[in-house]
């Protein structure tokens, strides 16, 4: 209990940030027409690709002599890039089709 409270005290700013971001996520998606569910899911999929920033961070901190870390880190960056690039491009392709109308 005490550790939990200490934790809250130490990271209060971030905890607030998380709580507000949760509500923001719900607000931003609310009332979206069914038609856009697939592209939206795909777009959200691309956005969580931001995890690649963490992978790059790992690489930058890595000891250049530590081969296992470099190998895993490079793999992580590669996978993150796939998520980001593939995600945004697929979403764009889906949305491109909506744009032709009108």
């Amino acid at each position: 209990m005490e550790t939990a409270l200490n934790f809250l005290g130490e990271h209060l700013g971030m905890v607030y940030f998380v709580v507000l971001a949760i509500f923001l996520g719900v607000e931003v998606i609310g009332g979206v027409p069914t038609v856009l569910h697939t592209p939206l899911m795909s777009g959200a999929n691309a956005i969580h690709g931001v995890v690649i920033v963490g992978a790059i961070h790992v690489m930058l901190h890595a000891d250049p002599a530590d081969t296992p870390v470099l190998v895993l880190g490079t793999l992580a960056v590669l996978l993150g890039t796939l998520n980001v690039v593939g995600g945004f491009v697929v979403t764009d392709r889906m949305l491109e089709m909506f744009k032709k109308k009108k």
Partner: protein
Amino acid sequence: MKSHLLELSYLVGSVTFILGLKLMGNPRTARRGNLIGAAGMVIAILGTIFLYEKPISGIVVGLIFAALALGTAIGWLTAKRVQMTQMPELVSMFNGMGGACAALIGLIEYPNYLGNPAALLAILAGVVIGSISFSGSIVAFLKLNGTLDRPLRLPYYNFINTVELIGVLALTFWLWQAGPAPCPLLYLLLAASLLYGVLFTLPIGGADMPVVISLLNSFTGLAAAFGGFLYHNYAMLTGGILVGSAGMLLTLAMCKAMNRSLVSVVFGAFGASSKTTVAAASQGQGAVKDIQPSDLAVLLNYSQRVVIVPGYGLAVAQAQHVIHELETLLESRGVQVKYAIHPVAGRMPGHMNVLLAEANVDYGKLVEMEEINPEFERTDVVLVVGANDVVNPAAKNDPGSPIYGMPILEVDRARRIIVNKRSMNAGYAGIDNQIFYHPNCSMFFGDAKKALAELVSELKSLT
């Protein structure tokens, strides 16, 4: 100075993610929203590399850029080349990559944060959630592309899954509390989490796949957010939490569209009970009638209102262009044609809209379920193309049916029902459909694309 600039780049990234997601909620601005999000992502990535405080060794920079270049090339080409029908599994695949990335980060960082309980918890959570998301997405991918086409259930799978989950949680807790633990245990946790992802996704029925993908998407968001927590990185936090909560809401919206609770999707009501229903239903039903293209052409030609119900079969057969041709041809003969879009038609909500938009079908002709259902009574012909479960009356009148309670398109109220199907096999949910035996229903057998092309040429020869 540099570090402030870096924070600024993350701020810009966060704002673009929020703005992008918001703009994606409206058909007019959706594409711009996606591009804005992508731009923010590029800024955050470049900022991370170029605004790093300390000098970086050449080999590290080389590896980073090599991975970025290779990932961009593969991701871009795959995304550009894939067929429209394969979009859902591709989204699932990319989602899995993100999950794996999050898990790898945790794996690498674990030894570096042993004295810090908060960071350690974030790392372990990242490993567990990332791995589940990865293996689950891969299973979902294999299921959607047909490699694993039937739900696979171990006996007592709910029991096994629960025990597995408790095991994963207990191991996580132990690793967290025990402090410096031998690394093999971390790998055990990784393996157990990967296994749980597989066990979690395997028994889930095909019709529920979109919900699962959306749920796993939300998981990956959560894993990314834990990474952001670890590094106090606000771009990762915003992106991750935003996707986590928005994805969860989207998942619930999809469940609602199918009138199923998330619990019943995950713990499964499809399966054992449906087998008995199929057996019972396929006995004692009358024979089905079939109809030839020439007769169907005449029927459609002299109708006033026609409603087309597209389903996954249409997508598989790539028949979206020929159905548009049929629609314009009929309209030119004075027949009013609309499309009835069930919220979960296809493999993902909105799947049919994307597909028909590709074939230039007018947006205004796509009518959602609630609006079209009252219109069926005034409809002369309903043409069901490659859809099955979404028109199955068992959802309304058979409490024993696994899809009981799902809202359906009430096509049985129309004057004539024509069902285009390749054969009499059951639909994706694996259950029989009483609509085929309806007195007003005729079967129009054949691959959707070929059969419709035949129909169109018969129609052309009619004048």
